[in-house]
């Protein structure tokens, strides 16, 4: 592919200082540790992993809600890792976010119209209020709400409808990239598909790129072109979604995928799962060597000592000693 990626993340590190008390030993959580990936224009990159793996922190670092400690985030050819002030504001116009909780992410005291208009006012997109209002009505139509919803308050809407308002707000500034942080996990099953289809249609019409963060592996597979699997702050495997799902390489990916409950009784009851022992280690004291070595059924002495470096295997990236030669 000669096309250039719209977003290119290299060796990104986001750490948090969690030291308690004045004189205690400094404690650092390496929420995102040395992560690199590319997202092409018009593409959906799915990010999966269990809670605490750093997927949300990675998403928030990309929108610059957190500052990275190290590494670069190149967006449309420009490094934005250290942007400030007016430049950062301009960047945020192109990079929007949809949040997980449609109840917490909408101001209950603002009408739907005001909520969707606010980003337009911040970014000075239209000159008159009439123009903005016209755009709001258009956005409401795009996300499947009615024009007369404009004067209503979020409390009058259901979870799925609220998520549509959140999407309309993200679209208000004509972004090129949207970070979707678990946009469907708070919704009912029959509503999830509505939102997923809406996101897919908008992408087709407007040529957007998504970073889609979720723990629901079935939905991520459905919507994503490429998938990255994270574990304890590291990207352990990355590739085309069909490849990753049908021919997982990393032992963690294999275990994670075998844990998905399949909605088909014959398959689900016959399926043997690779049950992982134990739970994710604390990110404050990550294991030495490979982060997965404490739970990995194939771990060797080397895995416990040496951190595996990402290598390319058959067109995708995997960080595991098993595939090194």
């Amino acid at each position, binding site marked *: 592919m000669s096309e250039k990626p719209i977003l290119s993340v290299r060796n990104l590190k986001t750490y948090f200082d969690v030291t308690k008390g004045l004189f205690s030993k400094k404690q650092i959580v390496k929420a995102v540790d040395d992560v690199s990936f590319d997202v092409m224009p018009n593409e959906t990159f799915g990010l999966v992993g*269990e*809670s605490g793996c750093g997927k949300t922190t990675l998403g928030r670092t990309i929108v610059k809600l957190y500052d990275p400690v190290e590494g670069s985030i190149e967006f449309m050819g420009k490094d934005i890792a250290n942007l400030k002030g007016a430049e950062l504001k301009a960047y945020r116009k192109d990079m929007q976010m949809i949040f997980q909780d449609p109840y917490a992410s909408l101001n209950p005291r603002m009408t739907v119209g005001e909520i969707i208009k606010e980003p337009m006012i911040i970014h000075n997109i239209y000159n008159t209020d009439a123009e903005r209002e016209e755009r709001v009505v258009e956005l409401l139509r795009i996300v499947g709400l009615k024009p007369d919803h404009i004067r209503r308050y979020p409390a009058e809407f*259901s979870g*799925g*409808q609220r998520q549509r308002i959140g999407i309309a707000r993200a679209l208000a500034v004509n972004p090129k990239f949207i970070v979707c942080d678990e946009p469907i996990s708070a919704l*009912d*099953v*029959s*509503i*999830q*598909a*509505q939102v*997923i*289809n809406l996101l897919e249609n908008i992408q087709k019409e407007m040529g957007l790129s998504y970073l889609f963060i979720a*723990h629901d*592996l*079935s*939905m991520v*597979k*459905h919507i994503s072109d490429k998938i990255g699997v994270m574990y304890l702050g590291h990207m352990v495997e990355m590739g085309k979604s*069909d490849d990753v*799902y*049908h021919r997982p390489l990393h032992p963690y990916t294999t*275990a*994670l*995928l*075998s*844990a*998905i*409950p*399949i*909605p*088909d*009784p*014959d*398959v*689900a*009851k016959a*399926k043997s*799962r690779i*049950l*992982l022992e134990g*739970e*994710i280690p604390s990110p404050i004291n990550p294991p030495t060597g490979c982060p997965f070595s404490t739970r990995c059924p194939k771990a060797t002495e080397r895995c416990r000592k040496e951190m595996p470096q990402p290598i390319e295997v058959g067109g995708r990236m995997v960080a595991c000693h098993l595939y090194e030669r």
Partner: protein
Amino acid sequence: MALLEVENLKTDFTTDQGMVHAVRDVTFSVEQGEALGIVGESGSGKSQTMYSIIGLLADNGIVNAKRITFDGKDIAPENFVNKKTYEDAMKDIRGNSMAMIFQDPMTFLNPIMKIGDQLTETIMNHNKVSEKDAHELALELMRKVGIPSPEKRINQYPFEFTGGMRQRIIIAIALANNPKLIIADEPTTALDVTIQAQVLELIDELKKNSGSAVIMITHDLGVVAKLCDRIAIMYGGKIVEIGTDKEIFYDPKHPYTKGLLNCIANPDEDDDKELEPIPGSPPDLLNPPKGCPFVDRCTEAMRVCKEYQPEVTKFTETHQCACWLCHEKAVTK
């Protein structure tokens, strides 16, 4: 006779806005040792159905049932002399022959009580055993649910346990008195997928070994496909379809069941089929629709669906569905 029989159960809640009809005329039964899945979206009445049966309803709830029998005993609240005799009888049953596993393990466990004490309390409440024997039993239970080094863990507090481990403790407490029926209300929703797999495997194994019946309340069709022998689909406070796992997944009759199955992604399918969402949103149970609860979202709705509640059609001994389309007089057949 079935272990649990529920006939014409209705549950209403008095609220400031008026009467919420959460459970509207639900009938089902659970046989000894079988696993029944109750699937529905939030507000479908699946949890309130179970709370009505075990007597843990909020104070503003009113239960009305033609019949609720458990293990041969009549436990319909209105058949007791007064509230106190009902509650006393239920206290005897709950945690003993009928146990619950809740969604959020942190709110269920007492944060300032040692894990061991919470286990022995359940054992000693229902059995005449010495504290020492109860302690031994507690250790055994912890081993059974896969807690590593139980001798050390038994003296710890809930905050020292991770989410998955807490859920194992809840399961251990539920198992304490060899219950005939375990009711699990979204037991894995708060857990990560690899931990969910561990807990589901554990429940499945315990069910097979102990012979307890299980009622699994969930919104996740993947979970019931794995664990359940029979499945009831709830919508708008009603059971719209009930059948064996195969009947529900491979031969769904109700448009809502079909819709649910079409709007979930199956990662095993190679080509990405387009998801078919169900339009609209669930009905408001303050003013439930006069006819079928699904009428406003159903693509095949007829005039009769708006006016009259659908009659139940029986396809096999196990499979039935409440939909006018399935009615023997329906033209579409």
